[in-house]
């Protein structure tokens, strides 16, 4: 009899324990999934009864899966990672919690976060749709060995676009290496600089295309055309096999991207070139951002409170943010994590340069830009028109007019 009682008691206790266990789901893409996993041991010390299921998918697959999940309100995670490029589409959808409102009140921690990243999270017009966790201050990575050979100084690369292109001519003449991977890279920076407050890259505050009216587009197209005409670009797209090879073999002298590129170069893109690269400011010392990661809570999430607690741990915990930077090159959005000793350490891959300090300086000077639902579409249309300018000799004016018309036509459907 006693045995039976004991068994029933044990069964009751274990059933209750099981009933109390909660599974929190996090959906992310590489390497955000690894960052979350590495943060769990610490977080679970305060949440022993919570199991965290991290669903990692490839970058595009993750965002497609999240689109489908939001569409059908099924299979939604509790915490959703969103990359900056998708923020406009997701934030304006209305399917995410406003983290400025109770019970989250993220605004109370606003002063702790990089201002432009927080503004991006708020730019959907529905409060704070997503909490920034890492940012991508733009940087220019260049091959010091090739530049020395061509007698090009860093000041020439960063001074003005004219001196930048002049450097490319010297580089090609002396070493045979090309200045950039694709002329489009130049356009991408120029159109991201000097954006008036409240506007996006492609749209004004009313959501109207500025492609044919903003001078930055004309300048970006003209500079890209000049680089192509002078034979200074390798005509390879970023993230292609050819791009990786050209970086490895020193056939491209400069690559402009987010500061996180340094980690990619070191870890897999061109590990054989350790010590040969340096980081500098972008030409004309422009400050702009390149990507960034945000965490959001879908309206239909099952465990919102726990989800917010985990997001706080991932975004507002200094130790966690520093660890994500040190291990995964995720530049912290948390300001206090930008003051750690790690920032002052020399980067061996960059020839001992203390590059993180300059990235930090750049990050604080980046102005916030609004995101719009049709940003991806506008980017696509602008790139297609630029291709016509570069390969078919289409006039810049006509290309910008056509791009504007096509973007307006699609944007008018929303």
């Amino acid at each position, binding site marked *: 009899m006693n045995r039976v009682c004991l068994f029933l008691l044990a069964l009751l206790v274990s059933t209750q324990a099981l009933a109390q266990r909660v599974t929190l789901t996090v959906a992310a893409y590489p390497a955000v999934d690894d960052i979350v996993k590495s943060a769990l041991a610490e977080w679970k010390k305060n949440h022993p009864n919570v199991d965290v299921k991290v669903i990692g998918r490839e970058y595009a697959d993750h965002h497609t899966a999240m689109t489908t999940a939001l569409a059908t309100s099924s299979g939604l995670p509790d915490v959703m990672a969103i990359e900056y490029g998708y923020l406009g589409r997701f934030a304006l959808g209305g399917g995410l919690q406003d983290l400025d409102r109770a019970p989250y009140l993220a605004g109370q921690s606003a002063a702790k976060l990089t201002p432009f990243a927080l503004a991006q999270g708020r730019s959907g017009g529905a409060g704070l749709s997503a909490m920034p966790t890492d940012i991508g201050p733009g940087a220019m990575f260049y091959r010091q060995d090739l530049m020395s050979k061509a007698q090009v100084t860093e000041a020439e690369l960063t001074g003005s676009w004219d001196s930048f292109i002049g450097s490319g001519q010297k580089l090609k003449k002396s070493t045979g290496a090309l200045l950039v991977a694709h002329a489009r890279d130049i356009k991408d920076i120029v159109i991201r600089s000097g954006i008036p407050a409240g506007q996006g890259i492609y749209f004004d505050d009313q959501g109207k295309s500025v492609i044919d009216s903003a001078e930055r587009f004309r300048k970006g197209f003209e500079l890209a055309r000049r680089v192509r005409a002078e034979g200074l670009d390798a005509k390879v797209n970023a993230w292609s096999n050819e791009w990786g090879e050209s970086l490895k073999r020193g056939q491209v002298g400069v690559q402009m991207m987010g500061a996180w590129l340094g980690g990619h170069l070191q870890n897999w893109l061109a590990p054989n070139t350790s010590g040969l690269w340096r980081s500098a400011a972008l030409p004309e010392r422009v400050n702009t951002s390149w990507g960034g990661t945000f965490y959001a809570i879908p309206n239909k999430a099952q465990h919102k409170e726990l989800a917010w607690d985990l997001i706080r741990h991932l975004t507002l915990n200094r130790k966690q943010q520093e660890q994500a930077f040190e291990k995964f090159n995720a530049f912290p959005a948390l300001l206090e994590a930008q003051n750690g000793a790690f920032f002052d350490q020399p980067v061996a891959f960059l020839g001992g340069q203390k590059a993180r300090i300059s990235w930090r300086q750049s990050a604080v000077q980046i102005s916030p830009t609004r995101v719009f639902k049709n940003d*991806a579409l506008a980017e696509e249309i602008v790139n297609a028109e630029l291709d016509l300018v570069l390969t078919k000799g289409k006039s810049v004016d006509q290309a910008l007019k056509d791009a504007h018309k096509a973007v307006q036509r699609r944007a008018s459907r929303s």
Partner: protein
Amino acid sequence: MKPWVGQALAPYVLISPFMVLFLVFGLFPIGFSFFLMFHMWDPVQGLGTMKFVGLDNLLFALEEPLVWTSLGNTLWLALAAGLPQHLVAIPLAFLINERLGRWRNAAMGAYFLPYITSTVAIAMMFSSMLSTDYGIINAALDGLARWPLLQGLLPSEHIDWMGSPETIKPVIAFVVFWRYLGFNVILYVAAMQSIPRELYEAARMDGARHWQQFFFITLPQLKPMMFFGVTLTVIGGLQLFEEPFILTGGKGGAEYAAMTTAMYMYRTAFEFNDFGLASAISWLLFVVIMVLTLATNWLFKSKQG
């Protein structure tokens, strides 16, 4: 023991697994897509935000230049990849069937291998081979260009196979041709094996040569299989997605030269979040496929008649 379902009900119970799967994964998506064609819907806003817009999506799709560009690309690729598949597969199947003897199955297996290989692996292999500066194709052309006679015929600079709008289409057509050739070879060898041997024996006794046997016995007897194979090629060619999608990184290549209609439809839905327009494009594609399939049917029937 009494059966748990009556005799009258049993067939329905037995067929129900298929019916349920067909309804959920076959009929429902078709119906939902038809419904979506008349609605404006941004999926991230949830199901409740659909707005009825009548024929707006269809009209917008018909006036959208990219829809026509993608349709033109699709037809070009379907023809350039599809026609050679059959023109090569039929004589190749004849050769394998008549000449290879015990090596027949090995040869068929070799030709069939690309068909069962992962598209991603195929795309990676061709990307590496066709790389402008590091690919084996351009390296081979470099080597050939050193021969005095070929020097003037071959380009002096590396060909940008994947980056140029002029070359990306033929490249994709070749990959599709290479991939599906084996499938058609199998179809035709199977059809050839069912042709009565007496016909060939009688022809040989009458002094028919090999090419005469091919043209006057094999080809006419293959017509039903040719109809089947061409119909599959037409439908598959017009739905082409995987090869151009992976080879162009999902973007359609320079100047959208390799953007097929199926790709544009996918991108409209999942990259530009416009499911209504994507559904309208899918129904337009369906109409094109139906018309061309009926045309194929008519062509073969009239020839047979």
